[in-house]
């Protein structure tokens, strides 16, 4: 199969989530009185769904720029962890390397985590098309929301759950392909424990950091499984 077609097939599961969140952002921007050009600009250069949504009320309120910077860090800090697994792969991609790094969103990350490719496609080319098509879809969604969002007659509430559903499907696939269940269980335990202790707004970074730490501690144990898997 050709890379482009395979990449398109891969992004189908996240299409609705991107459309929904992008349109929601565009509508908010328009309602706040911003020209669609701003939505386009944000979609191209920010390309981070929840942060773009959070940004709108900050813009409207005229929040100080340093506050906006700190908010961005707090909301997107989870992305600090995404690149670790892709350093090896992306840095071999030449001119496309920076683009791959800057477009590594939650959704792109989870699609690349599926990590199975038919024999007849080039992995790197496919990954690039996945990143590119996701980005274009996102830009399209933002501008669509800004232009005609308020005229969309359907009640789309709940469609954003399709992103959660996709992340969950990736979890199930990993659960089945990984011989060791330690990483998944570590993540789940950390997430649940910190969610209970710290609450929904603060649990994410501790959960990610402690998981990272535990997995480093368990390196020798997990490496035994890697050898068995030949990964």
């Amino acid at each position, binding site marked *: 199969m050709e890379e482009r077609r395979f990449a398109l097939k891969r992004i189908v599961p996240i299409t*609705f989530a991107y459309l929904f969140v992008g349109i929601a952002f565009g509508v908010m921007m328009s309602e706040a*009185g*911003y020209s669609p050009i701003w939505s386009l600009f*944000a979609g191209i*250069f*920010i*390309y*981070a769904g929840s942060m773009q949504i959070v*940004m709108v009320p900050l*813009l409207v309120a005229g929040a100080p*720029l340093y506050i*906006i910077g700190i908010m*961005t*860090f707090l909301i*997107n*800090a*989870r*992305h*600090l*962890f995404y*690149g*670790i*697994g*892709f*350093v*090896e792969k*992306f*840095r071999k991609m030449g001119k496309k390397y920076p683009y791959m*790094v*800057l477009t590594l969103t939650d959704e792109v*990350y989870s699609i690349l*985590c599926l990590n199975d490719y038919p024999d007849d496609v080039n992995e790197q080319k496919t990954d690039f098309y996945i990143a590119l098509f996701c980005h274009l879809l996102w830009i399209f969604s933002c501008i669509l929301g800004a232009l005609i969002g308020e005229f969309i007659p359907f009640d789309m*509430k709940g*469609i954003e*759950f*399709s*992103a*959660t*559903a*996709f992340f*969950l*499907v*990736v*979890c*199930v696939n*990993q659960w089945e392909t990984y011989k060791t269940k*330690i*990483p*998944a269980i570590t*993540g*789940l335990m*950390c997430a649940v424990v910190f969610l209970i202790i710290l609450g929904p707004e603060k649990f994410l970074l501790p*959960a990610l950091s402690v*998981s*990272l730490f535990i*997995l*480093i501690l368990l*390196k020798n144990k*997990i490496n035994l499984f*890697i050898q068995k898997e030949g990964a």
Partner: protein
Amino acid sequence: MDFLYTFFAIIIVATVTGLIRSAPFLVFGGKKELPNYVQYLGYALPPAIMVILVVYCLRNIEISAFPFGLAEIISVVLIIIIQTTKKNTFLSILIGTTIYMVLIRTVFPV
């Protein structure tokens, strides 16, 4: 609205986001041979991150009061069952999301 303020606000959000995404590559990308533990984490970390991401998406459900997060819980269980038995990503997401959208409109209105 102030043109320059809006422009710089967007540039700042974009720059901070870009720096966060680049951080692991800036730290490790320049090395000839990747440290052993980075290669290891490339294998071991993704399942932990994905599970945490799912919990993050579900973080705002309230399990101590109606509707007890039941719409989410039912959909999640359904997706796990369909994906383990049918192994069809599209089907799992389609059914899971549809059931969720129906539940929050009928049985467990929010």
